[in-house]
């Protein structure tokens, strides 16, 4: 199961989707909105997706993961829109016969999602700055708006 959603992610439902009598291990990864990155204080995040391509790339992740690892089931949900501190931005659930397989598959899924799936994060800082996060481009030039003097 893969989805993009504007609504709060129900990680319980996602986890139950991958539970299976063939699996001895279930791994759930949640990305959550963190308040501090170094000295920078985040007040909220906004996630924007290129929806059709993002769904296609998530589907490819699911297929590629199933080929590379002996997983039983996979479920991925990514949030879009505005998120408050502590909210879940992404949930990845995977089940496998043994724990090492579940850990390896879960790690591969989140690492590869972050490389390939066209979704972008915009940081809304406590001091009023709003910045797109675009790895590999310079931080300073990302600053779109400075709403405080």
């Amino acid at each position, binding site marked *: 199961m893969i989805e993009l959603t504007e609504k709060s992610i129900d990680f319980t439902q996602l986890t139950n989707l991958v539970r299976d009598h063939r699996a001895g291990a279930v791994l759930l990864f949640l990305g959550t909105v963190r308040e501090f990155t170094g000295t920078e204080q985040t007040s909220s995040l906004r996630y924007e997706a290129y929806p059709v391509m993002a769904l296609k790339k998530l589907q490819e992740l699911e297929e590629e993961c199933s080929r590379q690892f002996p997983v039983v089931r996979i479920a991925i949900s990514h949030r879009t829109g505005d998120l408050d501190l502590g909210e879940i931005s992404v949930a990845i659930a995977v089940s496998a016969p043994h724990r090492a397989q579940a850990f390896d598959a879960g790690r591969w899924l989140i690492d590869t999602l972050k490389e390939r799936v066209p979704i*972008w994060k915009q940081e809304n800082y406590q001091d009023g700055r709003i910045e797109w996060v675009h790895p590999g481009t310079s931080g300073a030039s990302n600053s779109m708006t400075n709403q405080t003097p």
Partner: protein
Amino acid sequence: MKIPLQLFARARDLAGKSPIEIEVPENASVAQLRQILIADFPQLTDLGPSLLWAVNNDYVGVEHVLKTTDEVACFPPVSGG
């Protein structure tokens, strides 16, 4: 030929809109499209070399040759998760 180009995230904010229409020669490559994009929207100059390109929802290199029926998009490095 006219290529409708979707922009996302900071690229869209800098251009001010998405999609935009770019006029390119027949059989233009993505590299040519990028050159014309930056000429039309000089505010994208700094971001230009880091832009990623997608045709019909798959990543392509700048050597890719475009067709009028292609769905073309460009965007800065992704940061989901």
